[in-house]
C-alpha cells in the first residue's frame, strides 16, 4: 500500500509499506532510506550506533523479511502519529534528542526559503550575532 511517511524533517511519499494496526512494515531497503536505520545481527544500526532488539519481542520488529518501523520508532523513543484513511505516518524527534540538542546551547541550524524560493541557513551567518525573530500572517 503506497504510504506517505514523514520522518523527522523529511517526507517520503508513496513508500511501499503495509500497515497492520499499530505496525508499519517496510522492506529493509525502505527502512534504511526512510529512517537511516538498518537491521543487522546485533540489532538495528545507524552508523556506529546499534540498538538491540528485545529477544522476546523479535517478531514485533522483524517478520517475513519486513521491518516494523513503528516498533523501531517506539524503541527509539520517537513519537509517532498515523492517519489510516490517508495512509500517512509521521515520526518525530525523540524528546531526549531535542533536550540534548537544546541544552547544548548550540543554536540548531535550519534552512528555509524566502518569498523568492531562495534558501537561507542560519549557519551562513556564523561569526555574526543573529536575532532569530518569529512572525506570522495570522
Amino acid at each position, binding site marked *: 500500500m503506497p504510504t506517505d511517511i514523514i520522518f523527522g524533517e523529511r517526507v517520503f511519499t508513496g513508500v511501499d509499506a503495509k500497515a497492520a494496526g499499530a505496525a508499519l512494515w517496510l522492506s529493509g531497503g525502505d527502512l534504511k532510506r526512510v529512517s537511516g536505520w538498518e537491521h543487522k545481527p546485533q540489532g538495528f544500526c545507524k552508523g556506529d550506533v546499534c540498538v538491540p532488539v528485545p529477544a522476546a519481542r523479535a517478531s514485533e520488529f522483524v517478520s517475513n523479511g519486513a521491518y516494523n518501523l513503528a516498533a523501531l520508532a517506539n524503541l527509539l523513543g520517537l513519537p509517532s*502519529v498515523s492517519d489510516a484513511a490517508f495512509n500517512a505516518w509521521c515520526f518525530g524527534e525523540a524528546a531526549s534528542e531535542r533536550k540534548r540538542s537544546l541544552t547544548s546551547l548550540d543554536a540548531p541550524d535550519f534552512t528555509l526559503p524566502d518569498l523568492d524560493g531562495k534558501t537561507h541557513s542560519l549557519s551562513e551567518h556564523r561569526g555574526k550575532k543573529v536575532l532569530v525573530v*518569529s512572525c506570522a500572517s495570522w
Partner: protein
Amino acid sequence: MPIAIAFDSGGNAATEPWIKAGKPTYPCLIDRKHLVAELYDMVNVPTAVWIDERGKIVRPSEPAGVSDAFRKMNRTNFSIPADAMSELQAKRKAYLEALRDWVANGSKSSFALSEAEVLRRMHTPDDTQVRAAANFRLGEFLFEQGHAEAAKKYFEEAKRLRPESWNYKRQAWALEDPMKPGGPEFWAAVDALPEGQYYPGPDDI
C-alpha cells in the same frame, strides 16, 4: 543580523502581502511546518532568540518587545487606547535598547545571559511536546495535500497537548478561517489567562 521566520502553513500566499509591506532589508523566511518554532521552543509571535558569533544561544525564546497591554485593544475596530499604546511602545523601546546594548558590548552586555541562566529560562522538551509536534506536522501535511477536514483532528490534538502554544491554536484557526485568529475564540482564550501570561516577558528587559 536579524532573520525573521514566518510560521505560516499558508506559505507565500499568506505571507507575501505582509513581507512586501515591511520592505525588509534582512531575510524573511517562510516556515510552513513551524520547524524553527520546534527547534527553539517558540510558542507565540513575536518571540526571539539571541545567538552569538560562535553560534551559542545567549537568550532563549522569549516575547520580543511586546506585552499583554494589547489586551486592552478594542476588539471590534482593533484600536488601542493611549495608555496601552504607550506601554507597548515603552516595551518595544526597552527591547531594542537591550538588543543594541548586546550588539555593542557582546558578552559584556548584561542582557547576554550566562549559560546557567539560559538553561534556567529554557523550557526543556519533553515527550508531550514532541508528540504535539508530530501531530501538528501530520495535520499540516494532510492540509497541504488538500485534506483540510482530516487535518483538523491532528491540529486539535497538538493544541490539546500543548495549550501554551499560541502558534498551534492561531495557525489552525487561520487555516479554517483567516478572521478566526483574531476572533471571539481567540479573545476568550486570552481572557482565560492571568494578566502577563500571554506574553510572559523576561523580567530583565
